[in-house]
C-alpha cells in the first residue's frame, strides 16, 4: 500500500534505465499521476486508491439496487398509498443508505485532511532547496538563486533536482496565469501575477519527469512543457556549479564567427548569454543552451537540425509564440548553429 517505500526500494534498480534515458533524446519520461516518484505524489496516490475502492463499491451497490427495483416482482396496485409496513421497510433502507453515505463522506473527509497534513509536513522541511520558477507565455524560466547575484544560475524549461531532498519551488508569473504540474511528483500550483505561490516536490528516484502548464494561458498553452531531471546529489551539485558559470568561450573559428553573428543579430533583443554583451531578459537565457534536453519548452529535442529549424521558422512550429522568424544567409547560419551548439 505504501508506494513510497516500494518505490524507494525499486529506485536503485531503475537507475541504469534512467541513465539510458538521460543519454537519449530525453523526451520519453515518466508522467503518470499514479506512478508516483516522490512522497507528495505517493500520499495523493494512496488517497486515490481509498477513494476509488470505496466509490467502486458504492457504485456497484447503487446499480444493483436500481436493477433490482426494476426487475423485482411488483404487486402494489395503489398509486397513492403504500401499506404502512412496506413504507416502513423501504424507509428503513433509504435512511440506512443515507446514513452509510454520511459515514463514508466523513471517512473521505478525514482521510483527505490527513493526507493534506502529511504533505504539509513534508513541505515544511527546512533543509529544502529553493528554486524560483517564473511562468512566461509560453515557457518556464528557472532560477537557482544565490546570495551572490552573479552566482544565480538561470535556465529554461528544465529543472534539475537532487534525489531524496525536498525542493521548494517559488512560483511567479511574468504575464498571465500558468500552472506548474509534474504528475509523478505531486499536485499542481498556479503561477499568478502579483502572487508568490509555493510548491514542494521531491523525487525519491532518479529520472526524467515530464509535466506541462495546466492553466490555459493563450495560444501555445498546449506547448508549454517542462521536464524535471532528478539526479543523485553529487551529480546535481556538479550540474549546478556548471550552470553558474558564464558561457563557454568559443573555441573553433566557426564558433567565434557564430558568436559575432549572434551578437550582431536581433537575437540579443530578447536573449542573454552570460559572459557576452547579450543581456536581455525577454526570452530564455541561452548561456548553457546546448546542455538542455529540449527546445521551445519541451516541444523539440535539442539537436542541431531542430535548433536550425526553430530559428528559421518558430511560427510554423509554435504558431503565435513570441519568437519572430529569422533569415540568415548560409554562411552566417552554420557558424551560428556551431556557436549555439557549443554552449554546454
Amino acid at each position, binding site marked *: 500500500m505504501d508506494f513510497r517505500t516500494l518505490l524507494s526500494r525499486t529506485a536503485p534498480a531503475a537507475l541504469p534505465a534512467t541513465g539510458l534515458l538521460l543519454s537519449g533524446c530525453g523526451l520519453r519520461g515518466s508522467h503518470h499521476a499514479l506512478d508516483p516518484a516522490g512522497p507528495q505524489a505517493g500520499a495523493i496516490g494512496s488517497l486515490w486508491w481509498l477513494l476509488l475502492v470505496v466509490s467502486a463499491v458504492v457504485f456497484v451497490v447503487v446499480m444493483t439496487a436500481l436493477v433490482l427495483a426494476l426487475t423485482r416482482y*411488483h404487486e402494489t396496485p395503489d398509486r397513492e398509498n403504500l401499506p404502512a409496513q412496506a413504507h416502513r421497510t423501504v424507509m428503513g433502507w433509504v435512511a440506512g443508505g443515507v446514513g452509510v*453515505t454520511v459515514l463514508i463522506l466523513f471517512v473521505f473527509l478525514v482521510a483527505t485532511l490527513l493526507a493534506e497534513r502529511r504533505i504539509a509536513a513534508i513541505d515544511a522541511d527546512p533543509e529544502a532547496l529553493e528554486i524560483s520558477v517564473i511562468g512566461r507565455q509560453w515557457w518556464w524560466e528557472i532560477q537557482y538563486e544565490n546570495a551572490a547575484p552573479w552566482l544565480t544560475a538561470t535556465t529554461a524549461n528544465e529543472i534539475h533536482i537532487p534525489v531524496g531532498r525536498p525542493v521548494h519551488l517559488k512560483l511567479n508569473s511574468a504575464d498571465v*496565469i500558468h500552472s506548474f504540474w509534474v*504528475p509523478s511528483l505531486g499536485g499542481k500550483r498556479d503561477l499568478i501575477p502579483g502572487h508568490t505561490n509555493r510548491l514542494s516536490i521531491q523525487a525519491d528516484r532518479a529520472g526524467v519527469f515530464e509535466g506541462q502548464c495546466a492553466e490555459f494561458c493563450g495560444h501555445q*498553452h498546449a506547448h508549454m512543457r517542462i521536464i524535471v531531471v532528478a539526479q543523485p546529489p553529487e551529480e546535481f551539485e556538479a550540474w549546478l556549479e556548471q550552470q553558474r558559470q558564464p558561457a563557454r568561450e568559443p573555441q573553433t573559428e566557426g564558433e567565434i564567427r557564430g558568436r559575432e553573428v549572434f551578437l550582431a543579430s536581433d537575437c540579443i533583443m530578447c536573449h542573454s548569454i552570460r559572459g557576452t554583451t547579450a543581456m536581455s531578459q525577454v526570452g530564455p537565457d541561452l548561456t548553457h543552451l546546448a546542455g538542455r534536453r529540449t527546445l521551445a519548452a519541451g516541444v523539440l529535442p535539442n539537436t542541431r537540425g531542430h535548433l536550425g529549424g526553430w530559428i528559421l521558422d518558430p511560427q510554423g512550429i509554435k*504558431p503565435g509564440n513570441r519568437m519572430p522568424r529569422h533569415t540568415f544567409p548560409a554562411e552566417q547560419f552554420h557558424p551560428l548553429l556551431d556557436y549555439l551548439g557549443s554552449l554546454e
Partner: protein
Amino acid sequence: MNPEGPRSAAVLPTAGPRAADARASHHDLDRVWSPPEGLYGWLTTTSHTQIGRRFIVTAFIFFLLGGILAALMRLQLSHAESGFLSPDRYNQIFTMHGVTMMFLFAVPIMEGFGIYLIPLMVGTRNLAFPRLNSFGYFTYLIGGILLYAALLLDIGPDAGWFAYLPLAGPEFSPGHRMDFYAEIITFLEISALVGAVEIIVTVFKLRAPGMTLNRMPLFVWALLVTSFMIVFAMPSVEMASAYLILERLAGTHFFDPAAGGDPMLWQHAFWFFGHPEVYIIFIPATGMVASIVVTFSQRQMFGYPAVILALITTGFVGFGLWVHHMFATGLPSLGMSFFAAASMMIAIPSGIQVFCWIATLWTGRPRLRVPLWFVLGFVFLFVMGGLTGVMLGAVPFNLQVHDTYFVVAHFHYVLIGGAVFPLFGGFYYWFPKMTGRMLNERLGLWNFWLMFIGFNVTFFPMHELGFRGMPRRVYTYLESTGWEPLNLLASCGAAVLAVGVLLFVINVLWSRARGQAAGDNPWGADTLEWTTTSPPPNYNFHFQPVVTDRYPGWTRGPDSPVVVGLKDDAHEVLVTTTLDAVPDHRTTFPPHSIWPFLTAVAVAVIFFGLIFTPWAIPAGAVLAMAMLILWFWPKHHVLHRGHEEDAP
C-alpha cells in the same frame, strides 16, 4: 391597509357541474389569449407556451452548434500534432463550446421547460410577467446570434468560457474578441435573471386554489429552487463581466496587481456564480427525473419531503463550493478545506434523491419506456460523475487532476449524464403534450443506446488521460506523450454520440408530422398539465382547476372542482396566497406587445455598441429608456379602455 376580510369572504363555493357557469366560452378565451398572426405576432406574443417552446427550440439549436464545435475539437485531438485546426481557431472553438453549453444551452433550455410547463403545472393561464418573458427571450436570442456572428467572423472570444484575467484583459487579449465575451455575457444573463423572477412569482402567486406548498409538483419545486439560485448567483458574474468591460473599455484596475487589483478577484466572483451554475443546470433535471420516475412507476414519489429537502439543501450548499475551483491557486489550505468539506457534504442531498428515486421504482410498477430509459442512463452516469465529484473535493487529489482531462470527464458525466440525459427523457416525456404526437419509441431506443454507449466511450477514457498528464484546453499534444490511442478512442465515441443525437433530431422531425396521436394523458401522468388537451389551448385550461391533492392528474375527473367567475373576455387570472394558495384577487395581464422586443433591441444596442465605442451608453440608454416608457405606458391606457368596454 389591505381589506383582508372581504377578500376571503368573497370565495363562495358553488355546487353543481361546471356547465352552470355559462359565461366562460372557449370562443372568447381563444380570442383573448391567442397571439396575433404572422411575423408581427411572432415578435409580440406573450404566450408562455409559445415563448417556452421557442426557448427550447433555440436552446436545442445552440446545443447542436455547441455539439458541432465539440466534434471539431474531437477531430483535432484524435491525432497527435494534427494540423486540422490552428491554435487560434481551436481557442475560439473551445471557448465558444463552453459559453454555448453553459449560457446558451443549459440554462435557457431548463428555463424554457420551466416557462412552458410551470403555468400548466400550477394550473394558471400564463406566467406572472408575460411581457418580461418575451423580453427575456429576445435578449437571449440576440445575444446568442451576436456571439455566433463573432465566431464566424473570426472574432469569437478565445480566452475560455471562464475568461481568467489577466489573459482576458486588455493587455493579453487586444482586439474585440474578449469584448464580445464581456459585453454579451453581461447582456445575456439579463434573460436568465428575468426568467428566474417570473418563475418565482408565478410559483408563489399564481398556483391553482388548493395547491399548497406540499402539493406542488417536484418539477415546480426544482425550478423554484433553481430560480432562487439564479437570483443570487448570476449578479456575481454580471458584476464580474461588468468589471471586465470597464477594465477593457475604461482602463480600470480591478484585476491589475500593479495598481492594487488582483486577478484572483475575477476567480472569486466568477466561481461564486460558476459553481451554483452547475446546480442551476442540474436541479431542474432532477425535477424532470422526478416527474418521469413517478409517472413510469405509477407510484407517488417516495419521500416527497425528503426530495424537496434535498433540493433546498443542494440550493444552499451549492453556494459554498466555489473555492474548489481554486484549490491550485495557493489559498490557505485550512480555508480551502471548509470548501472541501462542503463539496463532499453536497453528496448527501444527491444521495437522498437517488435513494428516493430507486425506492419509488422499487415500490411501484416500472414501465420501461424511452423516458425511463433516459432516466436509468442518467442514474448510472450521474452516480459515476457524483463519485468523481466527491473525489475532486479531496484537496490533494484535486491538485493532481484539476484542469486535466479527468475533470473534463467528471463534469461531462455530471452535466451530460446529469442534465442532458434527463432533458432527453423530458423531451420524450413532454413532446406529446407540446405537439399532440408521440415520439417514435423504436427510434427512441436507438437514440438512447447510441448516446449512452457513445457517451461512455468518449468520456470514460478521459479519466485515464488526466492521470497521464493531459491538461484541458490544449489544441494539440506531442506524440511522445502517448495520449493518442485514448484520444482516438474518445473521438470515435463522440461520433457514436453524435449519431445518437442525430437520430433524435430525425425522430422529432418525423414524429411531429406523422407521430401517433397522443391524447391528453398518454403516460398516465400525475400532474396538472396532463389534464388539459395536447397541445394545450392558448389559455391552458377552460376553467382554472381547484386542486384537492398532490396528484391531480390521477385523481381529477370531469366533475372535479374548478374556478368560475373569471372574465373570459379579458386576460384575467386568479392570484392566490403564497403558502396555501387561497384565492386572493383577480388580476389582468397586459396584452401582446411589440415593446419588449424593441426594448431588447435597444439594450442590445448598448452592449453591442460598447464593443466599439463608449458613446453606446448614452445613445443606447436613451433609446432603451424610451422603449421602456412606451412598454409600460399604454398598459394602463388599454386596460382602462378595456374596463370601459367591459361595462354593460
